[in-house]
């Protein structure tokens, strides 16, 4: 590795390694949902705020419902996989059904300012931290 040279191709690999390395993290251990529930969620931190990203291919806005309370956000909906009557199936790997998942964030959040975006099958939820919970600098007198 040559020090000082930023390799743009490395950026994806680094991101993948970071995601892989955190998969045994227990940061959200007080979450009500168990691990292995659908959809798998990645939570990122952006400054003081959080961003939760999950993959929901084939799910449109109308099939999804999100509710936010003090420090939990619940996402529920249906993923449908439908083929015509006369279709004969060669290979079946996609799954369909209902899902209902709750994320617990261990900081106080501002439910009114939560923004969600669903694009290309990826749902991104921007979770701003509540003002009262932000760290305050303490001056030493």
């Amino acid at each position: 590795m040559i020090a000082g040279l930023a390799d743009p191709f490395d950026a994806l690999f680094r991101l993948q390694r970071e995601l892989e390395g955190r998969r045994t993290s227990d940061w959200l251990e007080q979450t009500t949902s168990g691990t292995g529930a659908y959809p798998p969620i990645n939570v990122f931190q952006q400054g003081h705020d959080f961003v939760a990203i999950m993959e929901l291919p084939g799910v449109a806005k109308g099939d999804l419902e999100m509710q936010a309370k003090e420090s939990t956000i619940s996402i529920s909906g249906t993923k449908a996989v439908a083929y015509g009557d006369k279709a004969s199936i060669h290979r079946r790997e996609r799954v369909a059904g209902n899902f209902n998942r709750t994320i617990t964030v261990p900081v106080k959040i501002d439910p009114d300012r939560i923004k969600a975006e669903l694009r290309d099958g990826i749902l991104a939820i921007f979770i701003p931290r509540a003002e009262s919970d932000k760290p305050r600098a303490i001056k030493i007198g």
Partner: protein
Amino acid sequence: MATGQEMQVQEKRELQGKDEATIPARTFVPTTDIYETEQALTVVMEMPGVDKANLNIHVENDVLSVEGRIDFSKYEKLQPVYTEYNIGHYRRGFSLSPATVDQEKISAAMEDGVLTLTLPKAERAKPRRITIA
């Protein structure tokens, strides 16, 4: 085929390619359904995060290869704190038999991260009903 059941998580399958990549990143295999009707073969692939512009569909030497790239520049300022799945480009290939598929007429549509490829059957591959005398 949606029932009232809770869905199970499918772990992303990594691509075990015969060629080594020049870029050291993981590529994944998109989950695919293939079904057949009288008119055509339909291939449905799930590639969340890929939009039309980053899709590359290629037919050469009777091999259909699909590559979807994700734009990971959105993740630059984000620090992962809790992760359950990995992110990467997608690639999958299928070999087509020239007798069944009319390769000139393949069409594709992409929506919500799901790619639907319609491969119309060549005339002689369309089923002929056999009547029992």
